[in-house]
């Protein structure tokens, strides 16, 4: 039962509390816990006379603070019937690979501190999973709430990206269960041709610039100095690029 159905608008008297109760239910809090939490917060508001948004902050943020277990589920320990695998990829190919590995039964549990997708697969009843990536450069206010009704659950963050997972059973039903699964891939790193091409282009441009300066000045040290200057000047954007390619577990 939806937790919020247990409570009508007359009980909360506040759209904010109604939205909060609904979100807490979506985050997995038991209906009774949601009911008393919302009632308690209603009493608090009545006593302090405050505006809900000012007193408690944005609904999504507050709901996640009140349901920390739902925000960060405990990793499932690997057991006899579960296998685990960690891998990483650049952002040119991660979506495609997530789709492929999701179809092989790999469920992403989180993105670890080294930027790897931490996956598990239930060997007894492997299921297909699907994924989506969202850009969250302007924050993720309301994003989880918008995706949750369609069954999407957050499974990892990396600076400007957030990943969501959904069991294929949501759309395929029992057909989403796999009768057999391939062995875990032996690779753990997947860098695309586009990634290498971008890297090669940068190196070639740097070398050509240095050589041109050296030839024009007829002095190899000028070319070296120019190249060093370019490298120093590029340090900031390169650092940003590296940060962008380093997935981190947030929260966070």
């Amino acid at each position, binding site marked *: 039962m939806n937790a919020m159905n247990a409570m009508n608008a007359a009980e909360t008297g506040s759209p904010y509390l109604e939205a909060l109760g609904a979100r807490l239910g979506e985050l997995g809090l038991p209906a009774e816990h949601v009911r008393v939490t919302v009632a*308690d917060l209603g*009493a608090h508001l009545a*006593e*302090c006379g405050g505006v809900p948004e*000012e007193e*408690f902050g944005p609904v999504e943020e507050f709901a996640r603070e009140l349901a*920390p277990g739902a925000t960060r589920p405990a990793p499932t320990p690997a057991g006899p019937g579960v296998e685990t695998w960690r891998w990483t990829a650049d952002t040119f190919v991660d979506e495609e690979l997530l789709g492929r590995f999701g179809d092989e039964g790999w469920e992403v549990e989180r993105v670890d501190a080294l930027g790897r997708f931490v996956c598990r697969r239930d060997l007894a009843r492997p299921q297909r999973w699907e994924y989506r990536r969202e850009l969250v450069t302007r924050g993720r206010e309301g994003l989880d709430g918008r995706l949750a009704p369609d069954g999407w659950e957050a499974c990892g963050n990396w600076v400007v990206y957030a990943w969501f997972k959904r069991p294929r059973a949501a759309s395929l039903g029992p057909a989403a269960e796999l009768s057999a699964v391939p062995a875990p891939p032996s690779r753990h790193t997947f860098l695309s041709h586009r990634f290498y091409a971008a890297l090669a282009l940068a190196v070639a441009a740097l070398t050509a610039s240095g050589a041109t300066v050296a030839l024009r000045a007829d002095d190899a040290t000028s070319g070296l100095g120019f190249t060093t200057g370019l490298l120093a000047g590029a340090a900031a954007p390169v650092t940003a690029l590296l940060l962008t390619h380093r997935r981190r577990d947030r929260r966070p």
Partner: protein
Amino acid sequence: MTADRRASWFKGVLDLLVLASLTDGESYGYEIAKRLGAAGFGQIKGGTLYPVLNRLEEAGLVAAEFRATEKGPGRRYYSLTPAGRETLSEQGELWLAFDDSVREVLARAGVR
């Protein structure tokens, strides 16, 4: 800068302050906020206090009981558990030792 620093200090000890405010008996969220506000910590928003109460309850350091009231929707009353008292004592001592160290260094630097 000063406000940020105070907020940072406060965040670091809020759980201890909440535990300490329950040593005289059970209380509820708004009353705890009022007590701490009156002790000089300024207005404490519900958005700051309730997640801390939740975490303390999950950790077994406080127990919560919801009671309906004649007027209004009811409240959750919080009380210290034995584990909460023990944690308050241990962590409180650590904070006081930390405070002593800070005072000593500042005094040596001429800050009175």
